């Protein structure tokens, strides 16, 4: 395991930033009926070694003959050599991806976006609050923090899903519950199976069970709009400054490199200045959330 105490070294931008590098699908894990984790490894060994990302960054994934789309990286830079992409089947591109098998080849370029400001978070508590598929981009930060545990003060994970069956990376999440270096709080909205022994309730209700130190904590939030609404409410009520609340946002992207204009929100490009924005950025940009 490679420990990263610094931000990723600058990648020498390729001569043609639109040109993807080919990567092989080495593993496909089914998470939910419509959600899978695709593990990729570059064909070119020098790319395997040189590709470094920051938690919260994304790649542009190409499926030959189909197209290209932005996908956030779910694996941590502390576990290099492979890339894990947690994908929900939602449209033309992801449907095409779901028809691929292990050993099929796809194109990858990146990493793009700002990623989480891990240097700023260092020395502070880290609160991760994810709802549903929001775990996909946060998982990278989660493992980055756990693998560099000494860099952070307390680490709290709040993860809510609709039901135990809807929980992404469930075994991994449950295994965290046994660790004493992370306060892992899992909750489900409902448990039709009746087998869930953990908490039942919406994600924001987890705030009733923790004492937070807002002035020494960064909160990383990701989830559907309803999660943002209520989690942000709880964070503000707890006294968080708006620039200590970090959010990962999704926008339409075609190029990923600040040219095509699609991910523009007011005067920022989600692909360059995002996808991680502070809540202060968010409320100052039109149409942001």
């Amino acid at each position: 395991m490679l420990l990263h105490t610094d931000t990723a070294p600058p990648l020498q931008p390729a001569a043609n930033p639109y040109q993807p590098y080919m990567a092989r699908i080495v593993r496909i894990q089914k998470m939910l009926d419509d959600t899978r984790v695709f593990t990729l490894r570059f064909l070119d060994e020098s790319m395997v070694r040189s590709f470094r990302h920051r938690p919260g960054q994304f790649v542009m994934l190409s499926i030959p003959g189909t197209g290209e789309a932005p996908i956030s990286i779910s694996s941590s830079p502390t576990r290099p050599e492979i890339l894990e992409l947690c994908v929900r089947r939602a449209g033309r591109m992801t449907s095409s991806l779901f028809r691929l098998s292990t050993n099929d080849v796809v194109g990858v370029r990146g990493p793009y976006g700002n990623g989480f400001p891990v240097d700023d978070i260092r020395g502070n508590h880290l609160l991760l609050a994810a709802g549903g598929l929001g775990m996909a981009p946060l998982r990278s930060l989660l493992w980055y923090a756990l693998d560099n545990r000494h860099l952070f003060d307390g680490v709290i994970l709040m993860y809510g899903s609709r039901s135990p069956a809807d929980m992404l990376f469930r075994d991994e999440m449950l295994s965290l519950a046994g660790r004493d270096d992370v306060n892992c709080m899992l909750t489900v909205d409902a448990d039709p199976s009746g087998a869930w022994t953990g908490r039942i309730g919406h994600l924001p209700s987890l705030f009733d069970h923790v004492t937070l130190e807002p002035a020494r904590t960064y909160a990383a939030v990701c989830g559907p709009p309803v999660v943002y609404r209520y989690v942000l409410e709880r964070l503000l009520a707890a006294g968080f400054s708006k620039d200590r609340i970090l959010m990962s946002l999704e926008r339409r992207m075609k190029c990923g490199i600040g040219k095509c204009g699609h991910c523009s929100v007011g005067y920022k490009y989600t692909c360059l200045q995002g996808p991680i924005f502070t809540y202060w950025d968010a409320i100052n940009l039109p149409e942001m959330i």
Partner: protein
Amino acid sequence: MKILKLPKDKLDYFASVVQQFGEVHAPVEQDGKYVFKRLTRWSEARLAYDRTILPPKKYFLPPKEPLLVYRPGEGYVAPAGDVQHRLVLFGVHACDVYALNILDLVFAGKYPDPYYQARRKNIAIIGIDCVPDGKCFCRSMRADFVDHGFDLFFCDIGGHYLTFVGSALGDDMVLATETLFETVSPADIDEYKRRSGAKHEAFQLDVEIRDLPEIFEMEYGSAIWDDLGAQCLSCGSCSAVCPTCYCFDMNDEAVLGSRAGTRSRNWDSCLFSTHALVAGGENFRESRSSRIKFRFYHKQRGFVAEYGRPSCVGCGRCITACPVDIDIVEVLAALRETRHAATH
């Protein structure tokens, strides 16, 4: 800057010399309008033109451009393409040169766009000054003069063109004519100043861009946007003809019976209903009014924050191209209007 002058009656000869620097394209007439086009002979060129239907943008960011070709086993590679093709654009107005300088900002940065950059390097620009008409407001947008981004720039001073030499390539063009260009006299400079002043007076439109970003912030919820949304046809004409609109879409086209294919970029517009639509169906700018507001906001406020100036050069093309007469100058004036009685 090296400044010379060219006798007007030697322009034909100069144009013939310039051919050795690339295929010459210039404005030609097309059914009462003008378009930049490859010249078959110099006499087709119309240097006294108002504005071309499309700006020179079409040469640097073509409407549809193949970016990559995919072949199984080979991956994605750039097609041979024509980015190295040498052209000379003859007769580009200052606003359009300015617009290219703005596009330069977008297509440079952390990830320089190699296709745009190659074209910018291989397409020479010979600018020419112009007389504003009723749709021009480049002066308001500080784009009525340019000091870079061209190879040569001609300004009419009566019997001569005052010639600004903007690059080494421009200098090569001058040198290739040997003795054609003459040195500038103090009287020429005075004539330039007189004409510059007269041009200033000729503008019929005026837009105040100071504190426009602030006004955009304050009028973000204005009913003006709803009215414009009801009026706008979302036809995309304004974006297509805009010299600084650069939004593009990228699409893959597969070869029949194969995953091999071509990835192209095509002009897109923030006025289209699909522009901010993400997989899964969420659309961040679903209403037409939110889209037309975005277009104005991005140009007059967003771009200022990002690059320090509006991404509008006042060329007037969007005014001439809108089927329902949406007029940016009127919109900006309306935003500036005070509609409420003073409360104190």
